[in-house]
């Protein structure tokens, strides 16, 4: 595996070098990246199937007394598989999509650099290598977000991203610092050998959640995610939403499950609460959006919440030594990591295709694309059904497993957890249902109906190199949906690594039947369901066409006898979301709808205005920003001192430090 990894990273580096040359070698950059991704993905898959011991290596880079430790165990291998498989398909997509970039020099070199950073995070085995790779990943993605730097919203999105990423890395630095202080070394092997407990563990937990969580997008640290993901080019958005968030979750899993030792039960309480709030708020934000890419970015927040709920259950079950159930919850979480990477990438690539065909991102100006872009529409539809957690696709399988963990959550002994579990379950059910609402809106407004603007009417299907990756993702979504055990078998070594002694997860399952807890408790067979529906539908079509009628006639729409072919009468995205806005929006978002009617005699049109306030922004960020500005203004006085005052300050600082050293002797 290490050899394959080095080959892959070498290819990525070559792609980086090629990218510096510019648009002429665009195809080479993406092809090299795709090749690199395929190499690493296949090697990772073989590692998981073989389920052997971890491979370790040390490189003489970085800090002189530390070097750079690399380690590929089952967890790294799984995430390497996810990252590189998606990266391969997205790179193929980039062959045609990248040619539409206005400034390719701003994208081409940093795309492979981004992938290098992500891969190195996954194999880093000491804090230094981890943090350097993490920062590489952040900076490369930040530069990619700035690819469209001439637009105002991109610049503000990039600034916000930079601030949040810095805060996150700062939190991680402190977390690793505490872990290193406890174990005496920056290497992960030493940290594993010295489990941490008590107050220090709580601080590490909070810092890890803040650091990795802000990169993953948990509420309230998610505010950078939607602007950044929608400003970046679509294939980069797919990488950021589908893949980078997963790398962040890898960091969280590595710290909480591997480096800190056995967790106390209250970690489960906090993580479950955070996950549930993230899932529900993420999807509520998403329902209110009408920009296609922002909507998809908010759905990333929701799905991260779902994964975090699974992780919370794993922590809670593990703390109570219910290892079999912890394994189930962890399988659900990791399966959802894979599934989300697949369908989120698919959806962002579809959004990119729509943007290329129509130059529009606003759903209110699209429509009817199913006729002009049939293949994109079909794959996007599969992605939408998958993300709405509906059978027979893969999103349903991981959510079903999460629900099984919720049902068994009543066995947790602590009363706080007992009461929290059904609430979390209800919030998850609501979030899943609202996701379906949102994607009916997206598919209905963007692809169905009639075109709402000339650009939408004149769209044309994109080329094969853009459709093929989308079809690839759609195929994987379907396969994992009907035969999930293939992937769950691959996950077994990961579970054995993180939860030693838990036994094989989902022991009663076979290729056709998913039996997580025992045949008399619950069972599901995706293949039989889809086969049965297909057979019944085919029989119906044949029988009805043969025995009843198969005549068909085209005629203007009924529309209750008031046909109006103007496209303004079509339902818009805002109208579709209005019932949800009415029920939830008034409390969560302080949603207000106002109609401005012209006075009699005025000639301008009436207008309808909806205002929404982001609770995280109003409640947390705006006061914090105000406080920081206030402090900065007060401290500004330090700028305008005389030289003597400055010398006094330095003298005072020196004396204070000497005092501290003297007192602590």
């Amino acid at each position: 595996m290490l050899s394959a990894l080095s080959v892959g990273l070498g290819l990525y580096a070559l792609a980086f070098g090629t990218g510096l040359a510019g648009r002429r070698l665009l195809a080479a950059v993406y092809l090299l990246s795709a090749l690199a991704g395929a190499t690493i993905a296949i090697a990772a898959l073989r590692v998981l199937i073989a389920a052997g011991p971890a491979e370790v290596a040390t490189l003489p880079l970085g800090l002189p007394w530390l070097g750079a430790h690399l380690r590929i165990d089952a967890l790294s291998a799984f995430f390497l598989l996810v990252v590189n498989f998606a990266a391969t398909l997205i790179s193929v997509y980039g062959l045609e999509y990248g040619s539409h970039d206005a400034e390719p020099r701003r994208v081409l070199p940093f795309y492979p650099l981004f992938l290098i950073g992500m891969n190195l995070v996954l194999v880093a085995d000491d804090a230094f290598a981890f943090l350097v790779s993490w920062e590489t990943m952040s900076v490369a993605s930040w530069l990619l977000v700035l690819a469209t730097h001439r637009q105002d919203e991109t610049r503000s999105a990039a600034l916000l991203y930079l601030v949040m990423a810095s805060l996150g890395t700062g939190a991680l630095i402190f977390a690793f610092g505490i872990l290193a202080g406890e174990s005496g070394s920056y290497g992960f092997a030493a940290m594993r050998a010295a489990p941490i407990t008590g107050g220090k563990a709580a601080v590490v937990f909070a810092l890890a959640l803040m650091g990795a969580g802000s990169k993953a997008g948990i509420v309230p640290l998610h505010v950078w995610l939607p602007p950044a993901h929608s400003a970046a080019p679509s294939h980069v958005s797919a990488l950021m939403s589908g893949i980078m968030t997963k790398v962040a979750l890898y960091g969280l899993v590595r710290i909480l499950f591997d480096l800190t030792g056995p967790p106390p039960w209250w970690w489960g309480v906090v993580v479950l609460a955070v996950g549930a709030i993230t899932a529900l708020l993420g999807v509520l934000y998403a329902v209110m959006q009408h920009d296609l890419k922002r909507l998809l970015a908010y759905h990333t927040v929701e799905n991260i919440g779902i994964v975090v709920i699974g992780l919370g259950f794993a922590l809670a079950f593990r703390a109570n030594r219910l290892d079999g159930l912890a394994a189930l919850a962890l399988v659900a979480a990791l399966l959802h990591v894979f599934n989300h990477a697949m369908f989120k990438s698919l959806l962002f690539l579809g959004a990119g295709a729509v943007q290329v065909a129509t130059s529009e991102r606003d759903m209110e100006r699209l429509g009817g694309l199913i006729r002009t872009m049939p293949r994109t529409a079909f794959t996007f539809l599969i992605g939408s059904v998958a993300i709405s957690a509906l059978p027979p696709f893969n999103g349903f399988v991981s959510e079903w497993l999460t629900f099984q963990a919720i049902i068994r959550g009543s066995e947790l002994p602590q009363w706080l957890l007992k009461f929290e579990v059904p609430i979390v379950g209800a919030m998850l059910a609501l979030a899943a249902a609202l996701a379906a609402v949102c994607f009916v809106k997206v598919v209905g407004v963007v692809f169905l109906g009639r075109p709402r603007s000339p650009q939408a009417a004149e769209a044309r299907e994109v080329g094969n190199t853009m459709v093929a990756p989308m079809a690839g993702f759609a195929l994987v979504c379907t396969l994992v949906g009907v035969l999930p055990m293939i992937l769950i078998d691959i996950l077994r070594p990961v579970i054995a690594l993180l939860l030693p002694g838990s036994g094989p997860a989902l022991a009663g399952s076979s290729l056709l039947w998913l039996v997580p807890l025992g045949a008399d408790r619950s069972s599901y067979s995706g293949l039989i369901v889809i086969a049965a529906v297909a057979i019944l539908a085919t029989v119906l079509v044949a029988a009805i066409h043969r025995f009843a009628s198969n005549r068909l006639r085209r005629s203007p729409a009924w529309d209750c006898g008031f046909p109006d072919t103007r496209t303004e009468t079509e339902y818009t995205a805002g109208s579709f979301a209005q019932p949800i806005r009415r029920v939830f929006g008034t409390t969560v978002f302080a949603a207000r709808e106002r109609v401005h009617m012209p006075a009699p005699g005025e000639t301008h049109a009436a207008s309808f205005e909806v205002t929404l306030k982001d609770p995280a922004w109003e409640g947390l960020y705006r006061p914090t920003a105000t406080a920081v500005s206030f402090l900065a203004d007060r401290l500004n006085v330090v700028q305008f001192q005389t030289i003597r005052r400055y010398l006094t300050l330095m003298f005072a600082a020196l004396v204070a430090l000497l005092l501290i050293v003297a007192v602590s002797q």
Partner: protein
Amino acid sequence: MTTSLLDLVQLILVLALAPLLTGIVRKVKARLLGRRGPTLIQPYRDLLRLLRKEVVLAPSASWLFRVIPYTTFAAIWLAAAIVPTFTTGLMTSRIADLIALVALLGSARFGLALAGMDVGTSFGGIGSSREMMIASLAEPAMLMVTFTVALLVRSTSLPHISEFMLTHAVGIRISLLLGLISLAMVAIAENARIPVDNPATHLELTMVHEAMVLEYSGRHLALIEAASMVKLLLYLSLIVAMFLPWGMGIELPLGWAALGIGLGAYAAKLMVGAVLLGVFETAIAKMRVFRVAEFLGGAFLLGILAAIFLYVSEGL
């Protein structure tokens, strides 16, 4: 009788009984309103008439519009065949547990909502958006009912739930009563019955489900109407299987006597359920659309209370 033959019997049974059930509900409502009402087999006649008619399609309708009636009906029919009716021994009952069943119905509804948006008229949009709002509010309530029952039975597999209720000394439990009421409220919302939606309305602004399928005609409309009827039968069967399973055959292989008792008990319970639904629909008025959120919030609340009461009585 072998189990695969029993599966086939159930598949045909649910399809055959569904229009009769709708006929009974309509007859009861008509009688209570002082009318004679249509005959009990009128829904069969309606379906046959629609099947033989030509489909009239709007120019903006896509292939999705034509495919969805078949897939939706197939999904709902399969779901109805999964719920145990006269016996717990079917193989089809194991291909999806309660949560997967609800999700399968969600898939069917996703398809119908897309069909509502397909033609691009405002009525389709209003129907789809309201239907999806009601469905999303019913999900937490349904999950609470599932959670409560699973807390007691330790399973979400429907045949196991029915068997548990039949063989164990469950006693009179308030949690089950609250769960039953909550499930009934969810069933009313999902089947678009009064007080949530009026299945017989002609006023577009009061429509939810009807507005969504306004553009369908001919054999497509027949399939969608049949799907609604089968969905009503499905929810009645679900309530019966989860809370009132007496008479179901649980020993396999199923003898002829047990089969007869099972079928008879099931048919009788369905008839009673249909009559009660008709009476209930006549007795109360339809709610304003945004009061439905409070109605389903009430169902959710009852579900939570049921779980809390179970926690209390199990924790003592």
